[in-house]
């Protein structure tokens, strides 16, 4: 019998939670790229040794839906790295605690919430990019696109992948930018035409670029971070910045209202806006919320920031649900029927 008791004890010991060494465990929701999480977490915990970050990571749309679903019983203490248009929706639902981080003065006025104190504060900017596989282009005789309109040419039929805007923040910023730059009816007409050429809609914003890098689909509508990273790893990619302008989003940080660990969450917000954090962001992004720190990335043109479109975030977050519903109705779940028209 004792042997069995010992066995039971051993089994239950395996399942008991590991005691945490650090003082406060902070649950942080994020849509950052997985590759970035490790260095950000290390830097923050080095500066705040009594706080340990516990990440919950997924694509933008999914993290947003999760936060909204948990509205009455928030599980997150803070959000570090989510689209500003998503944070604006949370703010409209009264879920964010306005807080002015110590270094707020160093953040550009257009990369933070306008209210004082702000509900969210920006980190950096990410923007639409087309990843174009040069080896496959040569093999398949594809010309290099230079504009969004080019992507509707019949030669690209079935060759393009783009992220699903319902799950991916990158997908949503594309759709939102097309509707804003082309106008609403023309924007949908453009997407109808583009839909004819789409090989697949995928879950995340970085997957199209990874698929393009692997030649699985020669053209991926994605954003600049995976494009730059994959190019550095030697993938046969051309980074195309379409001439009509790039849709973009602010990656931002916020404190969740009602968190029992609000103090620790505010220290995270302090860190996220600090020059030390900007040093981290600059490794990955060309445009930062605090001016004067960014270094140009050799893979991107010098005038990169000027290529971003004039983006109306208030419009985008106010109409997000409606845009996504329309998108789903047109392209999701009925792709084959539309393709036959």
């Amino acid at each position: 019998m004792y042997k069995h008791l010992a066995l039971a004890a051993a089994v239950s010991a395996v399942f008991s939670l590991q005691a945490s060494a650090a003082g406060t465990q902070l649950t942080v929701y994020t849509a950052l790229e997985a590759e970035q999480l490790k260095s950000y977490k290390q830097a923050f915990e080095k500066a705040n040794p009594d706080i340990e970050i516990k990440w919950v990571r997924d694509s933008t749309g999914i993290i947003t839906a999760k936060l909204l679903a948990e509205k009455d019983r928030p599980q997150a203490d803070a959000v570090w790295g989510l689209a500003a248009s998503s944070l604006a929706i949370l703010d409209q639902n009264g879920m964010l605690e306005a807080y002015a981080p110590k270094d707020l003065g160093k953040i550009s006025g257009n990369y933070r919430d306008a209210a004082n104190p702000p509900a969210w504060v920006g980190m950096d900017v990410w923007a639409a990019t087309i990843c174009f596989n040069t080896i496959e282009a040569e093999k398949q005789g594809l010309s290099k696109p230079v504009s969004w309109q080019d992507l509707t040419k019949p030669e690209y039929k079935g060759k393009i992948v783009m992220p699903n805007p319902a799950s991916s923040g990158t997908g949503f910023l594309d759709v939102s930018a097309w509707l804003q730059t082309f106008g609403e009816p023309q924007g949908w007409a453009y997407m109808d035409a583009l839909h004819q050429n789409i090989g697949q809609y995928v879950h995340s914003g970085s997957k199209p670029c990874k698929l393009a890098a692997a030649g699985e689909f020669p053209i991926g509508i994605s954003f600049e971070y995976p494009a730059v990273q994959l190019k550095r790893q030697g993938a046969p990619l051309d980074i195309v910045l379409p001439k009509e302008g790039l849709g973009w989003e602010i990656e931002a940080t916020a404190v969740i209202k009602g968190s029992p660990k609000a103090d620790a969450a505010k220290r995270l917000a302090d860190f996220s806006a600090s020059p030390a954090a900007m040093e981290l962001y600059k490794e990955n992004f060309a445009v930062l919320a605090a001016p004067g720190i960014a270094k140009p990335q050799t893979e991107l043109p010098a005038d990169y920031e000027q290529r971003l479109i004039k983006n109306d975030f208030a419009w985008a977050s106010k109409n997000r649900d409606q845009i996504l519903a329309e998108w789903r109705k047109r392209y999701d779940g009925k792709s084959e029927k539309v393709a036959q028209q």
Partner: protein
Amino acid sequence: MSLPLSQAKAAPRAGVALGDRLFVVGGKSLLLILLVLAVLMPLLAIFWRGFSADAGQGGGLLAARELFASESFHWLLGNSLSVAFTVAAIVVPLAYLFAYALQRTLIPAKGLWRGISLLPLLAPSMLPAIALVYLFGNQGLLRGLLSDNIYGFWGIVLGEAIYTFPHALMILLSALSLADARLFDAASSMGAGPGRAFTSITWPATRQAVFAAFCLVFTLTITDFGVPVVVGGDYQVLALEAYKAVVGQQQFGRGALIGMVLLLPALFSFSVDAWLRRRQGEAMSGRAQVFEPKPSRGRDACFLAIVLLVCAALLLVIGMAVYSSLVTFWPYNLSLSLRHYMFEDTAGGGWLAYRNSVTMAIGTALIGSIVIFSGAYLMEKTQGQRLLNQVLRLLSFIPMAVPGLVLGLGYVFFFNLNGNPLHVLYGSMGLLVVCTIAHYLTTAQMTATTALRQLDGEFEAAALSLKAPLYKHFLRVTVPICLPALLDIIRYLFVSAMTTVSAAIFLYSPDTILAAVAVLNMDDAGNVGGAAAMSTLILLTSAGASLLLAAASRGLLRRSQAWRQRAATV
């Protein structure tokens, strides 16, 4: 003289009786509570969630009517049905031929073919799908063989066919293992050829198993989302929609409604199967003689060709998954490296997920086998509490008819309920273990019951007359005798826990993320190489554990169970 003796006897017997009652009634009550909490309540929660109208959750009668009338639902349902029918129509005949070759012909190296054919059981359903991308995707090795790329209907069908083949095969192998040689002798003496013997003897005895295999393949396919998520492209199916509604959009009501739809084929086939089983009755009489196939070169050559073809296809797919996990940068740098096994910087949980999966699988195997085997023993070998026994039997049959996807949704709804004191379990390793045990309960329990039924009830009578407490008898006699079956249950639970994704996907938290979930996440993030690497790890771990347990079982049989051999040779 006799009076004090009987009094002296009575005292310890009362103690034994009390202990036994505690063991029997306590054990059964505990089992009842477990089954109610782990099986019944989560299922009821699905119905409750599906029909309660919460704002923004997509549930309620109105939402149900809207969903079931919508064009996109009909599209999804049509896709799901055509995929499931196609897969079953391909897999069942093929598995029948394969099983026939192994049981009714004289082809060589049967053990090898059997081993290869069961390989897909050791990996999550995403593995064949990932391999298909590397074989027939746009950059696939064999892309030239197909006119279009693999994404879509045929991708899902092929992936599911490989995933479900061993499941169908196991049912058909056991159905074809039983044959009465006297019937075949009689047939041939009456001048019936092998074709006639098949249609009048073999087919009637196995058609019920064919139906069961068809239903199993159909249900597994229609509720699986691992394959469609990887190779479905824009061809979407209901299971994927339920997964997206809950995980992606937090629309729990909508997920519950689709879950109920997915429960229907399983419930239907389960009840028809039970009805057929009752009608068929016992096929084998006690005087049956074991059928030995007669040599026939032409027949064996044909069947060997089929077996070789199927095994080659399975090895190609599994080998491709392993190979692709070792390629540095597909398709431009085909040098081999372990780059994809460096999980640190990728989404999905990496080595933590792998460690969690091993922990979860060990926990499921140990706790599950103890609970299930003790439960089966109490139900089979003890008298009294007849009503309780019946309730327990009924409850432990439910998981067989409930797909993992539906069970997982039920757990989300039940354990996440506001005010449920068990909410603390939500997202914990403990709940993952409970859910996995509940999911695979029926099969494991049937193995235990079969083993226990082979033991004579006289053992218990002997224990009673020796005044040994029942639990002691259970531990010292029953468990050792049934050890091979127990090891079989442990292996089954371990492998199932390593590979399952259908229920766990809804229940993990960042600390308890599992390897099979990591495969899905990595594929979602575009890291297909990493997904292949993690699938390979799962495959190797399951295979390693299976081999270890098989060796242990063989060793035990040789050392402690020599009586079996002697009995067989007498």
